């Protein structure tokens, strides 16, 4: 199987790509299948109330997955996402609980802190040329170490949070939790940035074929650092929201979430090799995971099966990806040949 050219990949990728559409419909079909199966097994599953619940539990994961998508599209990884979330949540809440006049600045503070940590990731991957898996595995430990150092086994309790954060998770707009709307906003913003900004197209190009992107004169390092900074900023913001939702925060917040985030991204059809996939797919992947968790509790099924089912879902998702990609590539190649012939 020969590698398709950059232009070819560019045409395939992005929001207009046929592969993407097919893949998105695939996840959607899987989600519908889940709904049908769970409803058949327990009729209580279907209903607005439960749907609200599922969307609420998916919100945090969907936003974290949106940030991760930016990095994965370039063919890299950010394993430190959970540590960034935990660090930003703890530090920002601790600082604002001691200096209440800063309460209005929590969001910019968290985003900035996350962006700085993301910048460090980006610099390690680009300028020090450390493979992203290794670099962010290292910062996963370092950032978590920093937050536990800072926290010194203490907790920020819900009473210490700024008032508006304490109640944010209970707020409802148009029948849905504020978290769901915020997640929609974040995902759509990232989606628009990817499809409208030149930077977004370059991200795809870089992920499709880094060497070719280099020859086309793309500033490889700049684009990649940008992706990490954006992902870090989003992780900081999501950490803040998770902290507000959880109430009592210790240094262990969001540890291990990277596996869930990656699972959402992969199930949502973002290629782990980079270059293809959409942020909307990743968000849908988060909803699929939340649906599985919800359905299994509704059926009174134990944790073990959740691990099994989730694992199989991931493998199935990438298998479908491979099939779709092969199909579309062949079709595109045929079309290109026809165009050339004509």
């Amino acid at each position, binding site marked *: 199987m020969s590698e398709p050219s950059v232009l070819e990949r560019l045409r395939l990728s992005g929001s207009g790509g046929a592969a993407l559409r097919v893949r998105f419909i695939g996840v959607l079909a899987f989600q519908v299948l889940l709904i049908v199966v769970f409803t058949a097994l327990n009729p209580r599953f279907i209903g607005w109330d439960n749907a609200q619940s599922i969307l609420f539990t998916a919100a945090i994961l969907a936003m974290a997955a949106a940030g991760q998508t930016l990095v994965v599209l370039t063919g890299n*990884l950010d394993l430190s996402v959970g540590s960034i979330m935990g660090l930003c949540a703890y530090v920002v809440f601790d600082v604002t609980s001691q200096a209440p006049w800063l309460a209005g600045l929590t969001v910019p503070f968290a985003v900035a802190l996350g962006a700085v940590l993301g910048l460090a990731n980006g610099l*390690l991957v680009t*300028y*020090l*040329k*450390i*493979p992203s*898996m*290794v*670099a962010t*595995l*290292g*910062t*996963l*430990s*370092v950032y*978590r*170490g*920093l937050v*536990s*150092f800072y926290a010194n086994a203490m907790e920020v309790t819900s009473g210490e949070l700024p008032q508006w954060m304490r109640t944010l998770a209970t707020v409802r707009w148009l029948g849905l939790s504020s978290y769901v709307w915020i997640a929609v906003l974040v995902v759509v913003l990232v989606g628009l940035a990817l499809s409208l900004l030149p930077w977004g197209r370059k991200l795809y190009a870089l992920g499709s074929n880094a060497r070719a992107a280099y020859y086309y004169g793309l500033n490889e390092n700049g684009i990649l650092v940008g992706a990490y900074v954006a992902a870090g900023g989003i992780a900081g913001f999501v950490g803040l929201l998770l902290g507000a939702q959880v109430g009592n925060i210790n240094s262990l917040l969001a540890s291990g979430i990277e*596996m869930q985030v*990656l*699972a959402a991204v*992969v199930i949502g059809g973002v*290629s*782990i*090799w980079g270059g293809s996939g959409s942020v909307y797919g990743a968000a849908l992947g988060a909803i699929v995971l939340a649906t599985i968790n919800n359905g299994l509790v509704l059926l009174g099924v134990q*944790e*073990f*099966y*959740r*691990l*099994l*089912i*989730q*694992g*199989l*879902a*991931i*493998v199935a*998702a*990438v*298998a479908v*990806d*491979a099939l779709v990609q092969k199909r579309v590539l062949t079709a595109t190649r045929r079309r290109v040949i026809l165009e050339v012939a004509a």
Partner: protein
Amino acid sequence: MSRVLRSFSAELLLVALIVLAAIWSSQLSPYFLDLNNLMNSAAFFVVFGLMAFGLFPVVVQGEIDISLASTLAVASVLFAKLSVAGVPVLVALPVVLAATALLGAVNGVLVAYAGLPSLAVTLGTLGAYRGVAYLLAGDAGVTGLTPEYTFLGLSWVGVVPSTVVLFLIFAVVIGVLMEATRFGRYSYAIGSNPDASRTAAVPVRQTRVIAYAVAGAAAGLAGFVWVNQYQSARGDNADGAILFVLTAVVLGGVSIKGGSGRALGVLLSTLLLATIQTGMKLANVPGTSQTLVIGLLLIASTGGPQLVTLLRSAFGRVRRTSVSTAGG
């Protein structure tokens, strides 16, 4: 001579670091330079070391397997269950190792034949195999193992724990496999350039599946050592161990992009991590600092060489500029 030195520069760096870590550790704690304690501590790292050597050929081929710790749990639970059921260890050992090799091969087939990304595949089986381990173990841990299943953990060759001997033998076997067999040659070729290997008639798919099966078997062997040392098994055994294992492999100079790295490096990096951890634990360094040190070590060792290059070129440019100015 200098060429030999240069080709082993990663290993030499590791040796230097080990010496430094040992000196540091003996400064940190007066208990460090106690042979018996060092040996006991070494036994602790056998489980991780076995998995690292299992992962090593997979990474050389440019792939990854993050499901190994879950495979270990399947093995430890199977061993414990078979022991309690009265199956002789010499029967259980090949059966369980074959089972875990099969679990590994499943990963391999999905990666090599279905062409799926290994990180995603093993992310899936990481959960799935863990689920299997929990299902096999049931609600509680398995205890009451027969002595033949715990013999290795309670025996010594001279002062060396038997499990450490087992690890060294396994390390040599993998080393030979990678250095002196067709499998090894193919692995490096595949890792360097899979497309070229395919055209050069290297059986890429079979070689990949074999590597994953070996990794699965290594995790199975680690599960065997687990029950020997800890005389029990639970579904959550070794949960989270893969980070340490991956760190050991990468620190050993095995490029995560594939195509390079030697068994000696993996052995030395395992030794280095063991030295540092033992030293810090003996000095009762708080857990937080331990996490920080390992993370920083990983970043520094992989990013260090490039940093030196960057600095050198930056200074070089300055010097060149000043020379040319002087000349002009």
